[in-house]
């Protein structure tokens, strides 16, 4: 017997017209709803997110059909992806039916759904439907029964789960009764290829043909009307993410991560800066709210939210969406709340994980810009003082600018202002220049470069704050002022390559300064050292030690530099104990987004939470790559009662102690080693009288190993 089925069996070809009319109406309702949403988006300012279209379409296709971003959180991600693929298969299956029943067969007499293709088709569709139903059930259990913390249950969630399950179930019922009437006995060989349909058919096998036909009509129409209802409901419910989330993949920000629009301060007639109204946003900022599915992945990872601060990146995005819909004239800053805005560390974990590629961070920065530039507000008076200090002395501490290069006294460092030649410009940054603890990092880096024969130049007292904390706090004016001075200097000295020990300087000089006209290679010292080791220019004498490594936000998530530092530490003899949250999932130290300048008054302390995560690995040492992180961890170890259990060192310090040809430069060497011994001896709970340096080192390694 032929392996096929009669399309429109029982319902008859007479349904074609009303069916298409209803479908058309459903699509019209959908289109109208979309248009109403577009009106909301159009309140925002224009921005071109359709350049490089080929790249965008490719990205959208891979992200959508691969469900790549959704799958990054496996728990709910795998069911969602299975459901999605199942539904896509069912959709394609329906297209086949349409192609045959309404085009190829009536017009050309061609039957597609026949023979072994139909058998395969039946099987695949049945399994796809089953997969969709099972995963939907699993997701419903998660949302409505397990109720993970932070996952909201709204009217739309009931609707979506109910409607989708009903569509699949009615589909199977229609199939089952049809099979009971036409296949179960007549063509059992074919029926085997629809296992779910076969099961349902079995339940109805006892009914007579007439009852089966009536039931079939009922289920067929139910299935069809539910589907039309689903199509019509897309733009009016959370179903809209079916359109908006893939569209958001298309509208993705293709600039380097962390790019912020550089305000043209010279623009004539512009008297409003930043965002405090919906109309100040771009259409994409409003669109983001519709692409958001409230999956709360951002919130789960937000360091502010996880330390009881009044910020949830998800909520910020949704508040913008609600305001755009219901009260476009409302003050967005009042709606979101100052404390929420100032709590953001711009760590980017929200944006990194977002399955809808929503851009959270720049929204916060734009609202901060309004607070600072239009209202002269800061998160606290201490931050205003820091800003004034940068203005006057080029550093947030208010230290005399003339002392900036003093840390390098007696070290093999060339001052570009003296006309000395150097292989690299070491942009030291404020912390390594002035902060005692971080000066050790600068000294270590110079020591390493010296051992590798690299001539290091610095700007000394001419260097100013890179402006990063100020920029992230919204003070674009002061950022540009200080940046311009640095850029003119760097250009003036004809610098070819810059190395930084600070990931914030790295991002700012390498990415942000491009908008202001600096185009010089900028590298983080971890990458630089990794290359020196790889090229054989730098030789290390490894001593074994156990450590855990903290990926700073601006090196890991922003720059994607995660392998090189680990490799350097491996070569140095390190045995890593990864924290649960590392790499792209790393947890901020709490100092990003200019928070390094602000007191942490709300909730619990982020740095303590991170230090506890490091302590949980059992490693006695946490290695950092950022002056802000180092500062936060030194503090967190003390306030978090981890002294004696955990010590923090910068990667440069670890490497400088393991140079194959140790150099005695200034006092840096011995003091550094001494600090290590004390820290590590504390770990073992014993303080020993200071033995000679080599012995001390060996002892220290023994303890950590």
């Amino acid at each position, binding site marked *: 017997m032929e392996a096929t089925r009669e399309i429109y069996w029982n319902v008859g070809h007479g349904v074609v017209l009303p069916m298409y009319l209803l479908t058309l109406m459903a699509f019209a309702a959908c289109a109208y709803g979309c248009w109403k949403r577009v009106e909301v988006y159009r309140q925002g300012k224009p921005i071109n997110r359709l350049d490089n279209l080929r790249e965008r379409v490719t990205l959208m296709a891979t992200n959508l059909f691969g469900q790549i971003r959704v799958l990054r959180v496996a728990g709910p991600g795998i069911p969602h992806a299975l459901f999605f693929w199942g539904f896509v298969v069912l959709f394609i299956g329906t297209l086949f039916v349409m192609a045959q029943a309404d085009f190829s067969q009536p017009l050309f007499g061609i039957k597609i759904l026949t023979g072994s293709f139909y058998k395969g088709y039946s099987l695949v569709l049945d399994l796809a439907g089953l997969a969709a139903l099972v995963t939907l059930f699993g997701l419903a259990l998660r949302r409505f029964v397990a109720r993970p913390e932070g996952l909201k249950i709204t009217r739309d969630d009931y609707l979506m789960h109910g409607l989708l399950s009903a569509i699949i179930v009615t589909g199977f019922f229609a199939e089952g009764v049809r099979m009971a009437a036409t296949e179960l006995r007549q063509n059992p060989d074919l029926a085997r290829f629809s296992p779910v349909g076969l099961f349902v058919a079995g339940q109805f096998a006892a009914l007579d043909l007439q009852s089966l036909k009536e039931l079939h009509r009922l289920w067929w129409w139910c299935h069809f009307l539910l589907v039309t209802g689903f199509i019509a409901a897309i733009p009016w419910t959370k179903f809209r993410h079916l359109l908006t989330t893939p569209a958001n993949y298309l509208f993705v920000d293709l600039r380097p991560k962390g790019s912020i629009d550089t305000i043209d301060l010279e623009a004539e007639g512009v008297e*409003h800066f930043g965002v405090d109204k919906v109309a100040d946003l771009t259409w994409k900022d409003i669109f983001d709210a519709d692409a958001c599915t409230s999956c709360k992945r951002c919130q789960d990872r937000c360091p502010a939210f996880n330390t009881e601060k009044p910020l949830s990146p998800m909520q910020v995005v949704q508040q913008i969406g609600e305001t755009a819909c219901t009260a476009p004239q409302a003050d967005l800053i009042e709606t979101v709340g100052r404390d929420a805005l100032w709590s953001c560390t711009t760590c980017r974990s929200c944006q990194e994980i977002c399955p809808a590629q929503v851009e959270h961070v720049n929204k916060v920065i734009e609202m901060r810009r309004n607070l600072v530039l239009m*209202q*002269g507000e800061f998160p606290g008076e201490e931050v205003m003082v820091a800003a*004034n200090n940068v203005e006057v002395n080029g550093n947030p501490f208010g230290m005399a600018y*003339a*002392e900036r290069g003093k840390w390098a006294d007696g070290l093999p460092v060339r001052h570009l202002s003296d006309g000395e030649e150097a292989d690299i410009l070491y942009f030291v940054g404020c912390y390594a220049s002035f902060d*005692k603890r971080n000066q050790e990092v600068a000294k270590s880096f110079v020591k390493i470069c010296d051992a590798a024969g690299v001539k290091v130049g610095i700007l000394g*007292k001419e260097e100013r704050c890179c402006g990063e904390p100020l920029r992230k706090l919204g003070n674009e004016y002061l950022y540009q002022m200080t940046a311009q001075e640095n850029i003119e200097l760097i250009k003036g000295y004809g610098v070819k390559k810059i190395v930084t020990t600070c990931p914030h300087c790295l991002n700012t000089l390498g990415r942000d300064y491009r908008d202001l006209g600096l185009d010089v290679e900028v590298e983080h010292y971890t990458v630089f050292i990794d290359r020196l080791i790889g090229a054989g220019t730098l030789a290390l004498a490894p001593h074994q030690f156990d450590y855990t490594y903290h990926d700073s936000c601006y090196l890991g998530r922003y720059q994607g530099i995660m392998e090189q530092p680990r490799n350097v530490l491996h070569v140095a003899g390190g045995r890593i104990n990864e924290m649960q949250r590392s790499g792209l999932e790393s947890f901020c130290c709490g100092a990003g987004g200019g928070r390094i300048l602000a007191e942490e008054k709300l909730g619990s302390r982020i740095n303590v939470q991170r230090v506890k995560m490091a302590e949980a690995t059992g490693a006695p040492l946490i290695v950092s790559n950022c002056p802000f992180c180092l500062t936060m961890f030194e503090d967190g170890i003390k306030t978090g009662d981890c002294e004696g259990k955990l010590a923090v060192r910068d990667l440069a310090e670890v490497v400088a102690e393991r140079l194959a040809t140790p150099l005695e430069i200034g006092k840096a060497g011995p003091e550094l080693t001494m600090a290590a011994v*004390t*820290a590590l001896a504390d770990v073992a709970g014993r303080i020993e009288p200071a033995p000679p340096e080599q012995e001390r080192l060996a002892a220290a390694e023994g303890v950590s190993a």
Partner: protein
Amino acid sequence: MKILVCIKQVPDMESRFRPNGEKTWYDEGDLAFRMNEYDEYAVEQAVQLKEQLGGEPEITVLSIGPDRTVEAIKKALAMGGDRAVHIRDDRYYQKDPWQIASMIASYAKGEGFDLIFTGMQSQDRGSAQVGVIVAELLGIACATTLVGFSYDGGTITAKRELEGGIKGVAKLKLPALVTCQLGLNTPRYPTLPNIMKAKKKEIASLTPAELSGEAELTATAAIYPPAKKGGGLVLEGEIGIQVDRLMGILKEKTAVLR
């Protein structure tokens, strides 16, 4: 109402000071400059009063100093000053408070200011005389070291900081001069539109010769850092090292461990 605010640009106090070649003032090399802290309170109070009176008063900012002084003037204009007068004087530091006050009074005499705000003192010279002398020369009421200010119908109620934590309240009728002390207010951070507007505001330029030919009453004989005495020693770093160093010092320099 016409308001005058007298400000001075001074070096940042974190800087390292060295006497200049003449040994009568400090060398300006390697110094960063900013508006005198007390003058920021003066500007802020003037702007707050202007806001209180619905923007009616006109605020004139006056400063004496070399070209770099313009930066401090611009800041005061960005905070809310309406216009400025810059008395260009590269040798400002050779003038004593009497001469400085005479210049200001000479300018102010013809302008009919109702209210003059100055800082309590400058952070570099610290004479605390200029404000009171200006008031004396103009023959107007004066209250110093204000930590509180309110204005109502031509009368100022000034809360003054006195010795030993005591506060005093004085009432002054306009015209008057007040000098401002720490604690009076929190100076605002200029907004970007105001910074931009400030760039277009008028800064009139005058020379000292146009204002006053008064001779100095006190001459600076010499300026020098205090002689170094045996100061305290701060131990820093790892606690173990601190202990070792302390033990070493106690052994070497004292008898307590013998």
